């Protein structure tokens, strides 16, 4: 129990008021940074996608339209708040918060900076106390993120269910099916990272990735990263996996009946999740706030204290992934529902499971001192066998389906 609660070295031993103030400051800072990041993300997405579609994009509110989100938000707050007559009033009001709060909670475990050089472990000194530049660093960090992201499903599911109308219900059914199936692939590709890092704590995972060759994206062999990226896109309900709110089929999906501030909360949560997920990807695979280093030579930003330099690196890396998400949205058309399920269950889950087994076998082999080539060959053979069995199983089920005359 002690190990789980030892969230921060600050809170070890007797708790004095200065650590409490520091924690409060951090809470406030993370909240504000989260909100501002979301605001800028909305602007960034609209501006980039406008560039990709030969438009100008928002440019009236503030310089380069930076305050566009603020203007939209103010407008949404002023609008009439509607609750459909058939809605389950309590759940209908609760759902936006169920979507909104987890978005912020998972932001708490992402290392936002700090000095990770020379085995420093990301510690910084604040008012004579050593602490980390992240709100919380629980030993179960990554598990916490997964748990929180599953709670967010409830927000969307209950929103659709409680609206008391058909399209939102369909949207929420799609949401729960999609998120449950992609969470499996997400978790399994995460497993590969945890296997290499040997820890669940996010700062521990970052500490292990000292140089470019040490980044988990390389050490896990790229495949888990791509699976994670695809599964995360599906988990975020972003295009091309945004079947939950497919306008052409479901009007607005789960948020059809929502207006005003409740809709704003959903909108905010969606973009907040995108930012958080990008942060998580960077933390897990790309060394988080670690500076880019090849071997022992690292790129140092001059005149910036090492602790803040971490924040700059994190920002740059996160920005790349935010751009990638927008790029996906601008490029890829939406999946058909059966394609979505096929990709999730028949490609991503088997692939991540197989890769996980491969890495595990390598790990066990190196621990026990077995011959590396033999281990690789045997695991490859097992994987090929598994793949053949999977194909066979799918063939049989397809034939059965065709015999009974069902659709695709």
């Amino acid at each position, binding site marked *: 129990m002690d190990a789980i609660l030892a969230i921060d070295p600050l809170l070890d031993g007797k708790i004095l008021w200065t650590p409490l103030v520091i924690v409060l400051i951090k809470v406030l800072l993370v909240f504000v940074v989260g909100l501002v990041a979301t605001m800028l993300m909305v602007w960034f997405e609209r501006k980039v996608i406008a*560039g*990709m579609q*030969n*438009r*100008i994009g928002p*440019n009236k509110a503030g310089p380069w339209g930076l305050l566009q989100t603020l203007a939209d938000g103010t407008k949404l707050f002023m609008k009439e708040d509607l609750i459909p007559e058939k809605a389950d009033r309590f759940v209908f009001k609760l759902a936006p918060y169920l979507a909104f709060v987890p978005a912020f909670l998972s932001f708490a475990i992402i290392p936002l900076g700090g000095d990770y050089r020379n085995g420093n472990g990301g510690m910084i000194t604040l008012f004579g106390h050593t602490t980390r530049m992240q709100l919380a660093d629980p030993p179960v960090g990554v598990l916490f993120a997964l748990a929180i992201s599953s709670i967010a499903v409830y927000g969307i599911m209950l929103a659709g269910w409680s609206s008391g109308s058909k399209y939102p219900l369909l949207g929420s059914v799609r949401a729960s099916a999609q998120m449950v199936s992609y969470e499996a692939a997400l978790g399994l590709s995460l497993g590969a990272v945890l296997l290499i890092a040997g820890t669940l704590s996010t700062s521990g995972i970052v500490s292990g990735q000292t140089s470019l060759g040490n980044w988990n994206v390389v050490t896990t062999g790229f495949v888990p990263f791509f699976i994670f990226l695809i599964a995360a896109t599906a988990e975020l309900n972003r295009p091309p996996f945004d079947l939950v709110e497919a306008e052409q089929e479901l009007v607005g999906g789960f948020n059809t009946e929502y207006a005003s501030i409740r809709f704003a909360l959903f909108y905010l949560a969606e973009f907040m999740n995108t930012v958080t997920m990008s942060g998580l990807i960077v933390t897990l695979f790309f060394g988080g706030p670690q500076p880019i280093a090849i071997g022992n030579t690292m790129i140092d930003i001059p005149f910036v204290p090492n602790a803040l330099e971490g924040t700059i690196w994190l920002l740059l890396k996160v920005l790349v992934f935010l751009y990638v998400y927008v*790029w996906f949205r*601008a*490029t*890829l058309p939406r999946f058909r529902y059966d394609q979505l399920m096929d990709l999730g269950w028949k490609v991503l889950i088997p692939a991540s499971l197989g890769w996980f087994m491969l890495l595990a076998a390598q790990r066990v082999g190196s621990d026990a001192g077995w011959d590396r080539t033999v281990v690789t060959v045997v695991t490859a053979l097992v994987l090929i066998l598994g793949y053949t069995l999977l194909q066979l199983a799918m063939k049989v089920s397809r034939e059965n389906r065709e015999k009974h005359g069902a659709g695709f």
Partner: protein
Amino acid sequence: MGYFGGFLVTLRQHGYKNKVTTEYSGGRVFRRKNNDAKDHKIEKPERLHGRHVLNRYEDGMEKCIGCELCAGVCPAKCIYVRGKDNDPDNPTSPGERFGFVYEINYLRCIHCDLCVEACPTEAITESKLFEFSFTNRNDAIYTKAELLVDDQGKPQHLPWEDWREGEDLLTSGWMRATAPAGDASFEGVVSWSGELGYGVRAPEPTQVMRDREDD
């Protein structure tokens, strides 16, 4: 690359100078700086349906005869007309009666142009202007004083309307009838009355003439 080629296509669009949208901001910048480049409107089609004008003949007489056909045909019931007998000594319109009250409610108008088609005297036509955003319901109801063209035959510029140079030229009944009754053989034939400030406008170039110009 196939499927992934799309990523390059979208990436290449960055920095592509030819944007489909313009820097329009409701005329605020234009009014302040009188600079069209910073607050640019897109070219409008000649026959776009915008806010109405009430036209006058070359001698300054009003074309409206108060027949209420426009009000009758209006699907949104946004036009209110009352006719009145002309004063024989000082007539407002050349006919027997004239439009005494003429009001259009722009909160209702759907700019379908049916009033323009119904009008027997080409009194009411539509201009190209749709950039008029009023801030109260009274401003939304245009009365005859606001709809009637001024002494130069141009539509009046109300404070909340965003007129640019040359936009008030193409407003009259001349626009609607290159081929009256939909018959192509009337192309290029003048079948409209003269109007204040312009006289009888020449017909548009026919398709054949346009093709010749293009060559």
